[in-house]
């Protein structure tokens, strides 16, 4: 079960990649784009969809969801650009939008865009996303800038450690985009298997989590991210508590029919994700 995103070569596939802009159509897959602020999410989004959403060199440029689509090997992908966020642990509006989308909307693949020049700081978000979903592709963006700064990154090792495909990119120069789409498609259709890293937690918390897991299992059997949910409950996360109280949490098991949170529109029928 090792990730092999780095060997996904884009040869011969360039022609198969059709950008569809924001044309409405029933997508085969829904892709969420997350990442720290100012890592170039919007640039990746624009490059993938051919749209020209305004990008800017500063944090907090995207506060709402932007949606576009592309076609690859005759499959339609809807791509949703989420607000930049450093973590998913607080209750600020931008973080909540990103977190709710990944958790409740359950995109088929979550692409995490990270800034290769400051990988360590970006990994905080990556580790949190990996707790929520295992269908992840890491877009190692701004590789050109990293190279100029004398930073080199062992992508294979990183992919091994994180357990998900890692694709080095320079979105502005359109470098690595076909490979990214290839990896996203691979994860979406199950061709690429992932084994996401779970960050090690302290003994106290681990024991508490294990105590909560059977209780969660009784309410929502087969919940895919029960460990993370348990940690959020221990931390007193109001949003998760109310998700239990309102029965919203059951949707994480059954697969959502419609997302009534912050999504601009619903996307039509979606496959069930095998638990």
């Amino acid at each position, binding site marked *: 079960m090792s990730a092999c995103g780095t060997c996904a070569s884009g040869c011969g596939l360039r022609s198969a990649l059709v950008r569809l802009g924001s044309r409405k159509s029933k997508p085969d897959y829904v892709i969420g784009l997350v990442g720290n*602020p*100012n890592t170039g999410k919007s640039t990746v989004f624009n490059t993938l969809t051919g749209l*020209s959403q*305004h990008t*800017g*060199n*500063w*944090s*907090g440029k995207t*506060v*709402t969801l932007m949606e576009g689509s592309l076609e690859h090997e005759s499959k339609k992908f809807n791509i949703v650009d989420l607000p930049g966020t450093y*973590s998913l*642990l*607080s209750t*600020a*509006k*931008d973080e909540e939008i990103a977190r709710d989308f990944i958790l409740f909307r359950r995109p088929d693949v979550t692409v995490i865009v990270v800034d290769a*020049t400051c*990988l*360590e*700081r970006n*990994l*905080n978000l*990556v*580790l*949190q996303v990996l707790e929520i979903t295992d269908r992840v592709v890491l877009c190692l963006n701004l590789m050109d*800038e990293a190279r*100029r*700064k*004398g*930073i*080199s*990154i*062992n992508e294979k*090792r*990183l992919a091994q*450690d*994180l357990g998900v495909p890692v694709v080095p990119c320079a979105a*502005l120069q359109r470098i690595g985009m076909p490979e990214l789409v290839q990896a996203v498609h691979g994860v979406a259709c199950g061709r690429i298997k992932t084994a996401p*890293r779970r*960050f*090690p*937690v*302290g003994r*106290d*918390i681990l024991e*508490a989590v294990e*105590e*909560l897991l059977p*209780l969660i299992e*009784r*309410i929502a059997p087969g919940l895919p991210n029960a460990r993370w949910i*348990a940690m959020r*409950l*221990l*931390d*007193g996360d109001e949003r998760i*508590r109310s998700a*239990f*109280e309102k029965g919203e949490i059951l949707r994480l098991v059954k697969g959502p029919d419609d997302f009534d949170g912050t999504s601009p529109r619903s996307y039509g029928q979606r496959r069930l994700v095998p638990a």
Partner: protein
Amino acid sequence: MNKEVYQSNVTALLQRADSLHDRIGGSIHDDLVATIYRDAAEISAVAVNREGRRWSDFDQKVDRIVTSRIFGFPIMLALLTVVFWVTIKGANVPSEMLASGLFWLGDKLEFLLNAVHSPWWLTGFLVHGVYRGMAWVVAVMLPPMMIFFPLFTILEDLGYLPRVAFNLDRLFKTAGAHGKQALTMAMGFGCNAAGVTACRIIESPRERLIAILTNNFAPCNGRWPTLILVAGLFVAAPFPPAIAALAAAGSVVGVTLFGVFVMFVVSWVLSRTVLKGEASAFTLELPPYRKPQILKTLYTSLIDRTLLVLWRAVIMAAPAGGVCWLLGNITSGGQSLMAQAAGWLNPFGLALGLDGVILLAYIVAIPANEIIVPTILMAYMNAGMMVEMDSLAQMQALLVSHGWTIMTAVSLMLFSLLHNPCSTTIMAIYNETKSLKWTVIATLMPLALAFAICFAVAQVWRLLSGGL
């Protein structure tokens, strides 16, 4: 699963979670965060190899100067002044060319209409009203926008705006507002509606509301052309040509600073009265300096900003031009409606350092305040003085003949800076606050402030110049 069983299971789970939370203590959140940080550090230590630190050193060196306590503000002011100076200096010639070209076309249009025996009122309404309204907007707004917007976008792409926010952060804290308000303010310099929407990045509802209510004091794309135009026409006039443009640019910077100052004061007052509370802390990231893509910037700022703003203005100018013409040509009791309305508003306008026509133009231009200057020009022309206008000098002469002085110009700049937000922004405020009360306050508070400050400035000015 039956509903009651579900609820009791949930209650059991939440109670257990609470008791575990209490047993472990209050450090769970910090423990989790620390664990994640440690793991991230371990992973990156293995995967990342740093050979040199030259580049980030360079960024840091620049940042140390650009955000330093001594040089931060002077550099900021100098950059702003240069941007406005280039805009004012560069916009003059194309503005005159556009004006003479468009008015020549207007004459031909009139000639054509006369040739097909169109009645005088139709020709007047279409050519002197609707067409001239649009022509004025294009002539006076397009050139400054085409220069200013790309320059501003380049500063943004370079990564300078977050540094501005960093410099201002301390001041916002002092005002009891959130430091991120500096960012939403910077966004407001582009468009207040966007700035208001961007206030979502502020977590605390109290500080978010302050940021929303005061965003209007950051002059936006719609108001920069008015400020730049009035400064270029009037503030520059008494100075020798060599430094005229610089003086005009300086006055725009001054007005901008005054707007930021008002934003601080209003935030301070709000955070000590109706919206009491402590300022919360946050992390402001200084992004790396990135080489702006000049060509792409030119393209997107032309499409996204210039044409968008211009189009909106032209659409609004057409009916405003028509209304102006009608007001100027429908008479009752031997006097045009415009003369009557302006006469009625005049004492009020004069008290604010403006005049009746300016206030009337402001009312006509309420849907899009960016067309206030073109509307004023049309109003004056329709008030009987049908001058042929094809140069900026004539434009200025027209204004002077209606009693404009530097004080009128300054008052208009202040009024334009402070008055109520445009209709799009008001909609955005309602969408963000979902409160009619706060929307009304956000609309009327700046207007009241604009009246009060313009009144005070005009009185003091008259007192001082009368005493001299």
